């Protein structure tokens, strides 16, 4: 049986760990709050751009753009994988990377068929260890990222698609549902085929009254500028979403760690008290038997 001193030391160290996890939980909660605000501030921007693109695409002159067309032959696919820079956030990283790896292995037989663009240290190390082709990487993204932080990697990715290096671009990230839960999500970034559906469905008709715009200089020029930018912004949106999930995941991971520490401290304290009681009983026994031996 562990000595009194050993148990006491363990209680002490568990208490310290609890303090740390508790602090991390609170920090994550604050960061989550900010990240959610940030994601909300971003929404109007992306919706406005979408509205303009839809109204141009649904215009009567039937404008088309290479970024809107699905390519006949898919030679190479890009995956943008958004992970965190550090762990301690439950299944946030592992769940996402496992899904991505599974999908890639299912879809592709050789590493020549795909490329990975990775954000976050955990993801980078994961793919590097498996010798998978990383085209671009960015680590140390701020907790509350600014658009300019990732503009470079986003525009290079879109440029790679335009140059024909990739024929399809997917984004893998954890979609934020609530502070307690998130979902591994894959969305197709490029080509922007989902506009076709919007245009064909009723949504475009709703937007139609607004679509009597004058395009200065012309619709094509605007699309040329707007579409790459739209794609870049979508990457930023996924990053914001991922960040919010990260803090949510870290918060709940740290909360359960704190709860576990509480349980452990309870058990250890009980053990400590029992051991102390046993020691006292033994001491009394010794005194009593010593005294009776003298009589």
């Amino acid at each position, binding site marked *: 049986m562990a000595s009194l001193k050993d148990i006491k030391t363990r209680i002490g160290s568990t208490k310290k760990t609890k303090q740390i996890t508790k602090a991390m939980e609170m920090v994550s909660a604050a960061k989550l709050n900010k990240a959610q605000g940030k994601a909300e501030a971003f929404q*109007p921007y992306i919706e*406005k751009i979408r509205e303009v693109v839809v109204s141009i695409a649904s215009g009567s002159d039937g404008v088309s753009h290479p970024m809107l067309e699905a390519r006949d032959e898919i030679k190479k696919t890009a995956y943008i994988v958004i992970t965190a820079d550090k762990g301690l956030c439950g299944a946030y990283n592992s769940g996402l990377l496992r899904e991505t790896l599974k999908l890639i292995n299912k879809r592709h037989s050789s590493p020549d068929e795909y490329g990975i663009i990775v954000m976050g240290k955990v993801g980078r190390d994961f793919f590097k260890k498996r010798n998978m082709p990383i085209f671009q990487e960015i680590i140390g993204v701020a907790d509350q990222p600014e658009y300019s932080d990732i503009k470079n990697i986003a525009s290079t990715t879109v440029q790679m698609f335009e140059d024909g290096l990739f024929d399809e671009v997917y984004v893998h990230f954890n979609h934020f549902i609530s502070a307690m839960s998130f979902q591994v999500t894959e969305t197709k970034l490029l080509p922007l085929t989902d506009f076709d559906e919007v245009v064909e469905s009723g949504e475009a008709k709703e937007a139609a009254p607004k679509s009597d715009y*004058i395009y200065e200089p012309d619709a094509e020029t605007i699309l040329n500028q*707007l579409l790459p930018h739209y794609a870049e912004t979508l990457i930023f949106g996924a990053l914001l979403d991922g960040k919010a999930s990260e803090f949510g995941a870290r918060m709940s991971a740290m909360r359960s760690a704190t709860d576990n520490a509480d349980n452990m401290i309870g058990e250890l304290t009980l053990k400590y008290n029992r051991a102390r009681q046993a020691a006292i009983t033994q001491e009394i026994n010794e005194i009593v038997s010593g005294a009776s031996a003298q009589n």
Partner: protein
Amino acid sequence: MKTMQTNVVTPDGSVFSGQVEMVSAKTQAGDLGILPDHIPLVTPLAIGAIRIKLNNKVELIAVSGGIMEVRGDEVNILAESAEVPTSIDVARARAAKERAERRLEQAKKDNLDFNRAELALKRAINRLEVSQNKI
């Protein structure tokens, strides 16, 4: 005087929102002034300053390219980045300007990244001018 709702939004959130009398922006074809009841219009913006006029006061906002959408009673400016003079980091803009100038010098020699440096220089100059209310 008649006013219209004007919003300046960036991926990092809204920068300006309110009723104004006139908006003047630098488009890729030149300066463009918008008054209330303008016909619907969509146009790309160049790197430059947006002037917002209200009660004879003019407010400046530095934008680094984007799109302007006009719809009768509403003007939406979707910019990659937009800053009011007070939020411009002058020291950073100055450093960016010097860096861009150096790059341009080098780029002339080996003709690399010329466009990029030029854009960076334009953005930096635009920020500096707006921060000093020069436009």
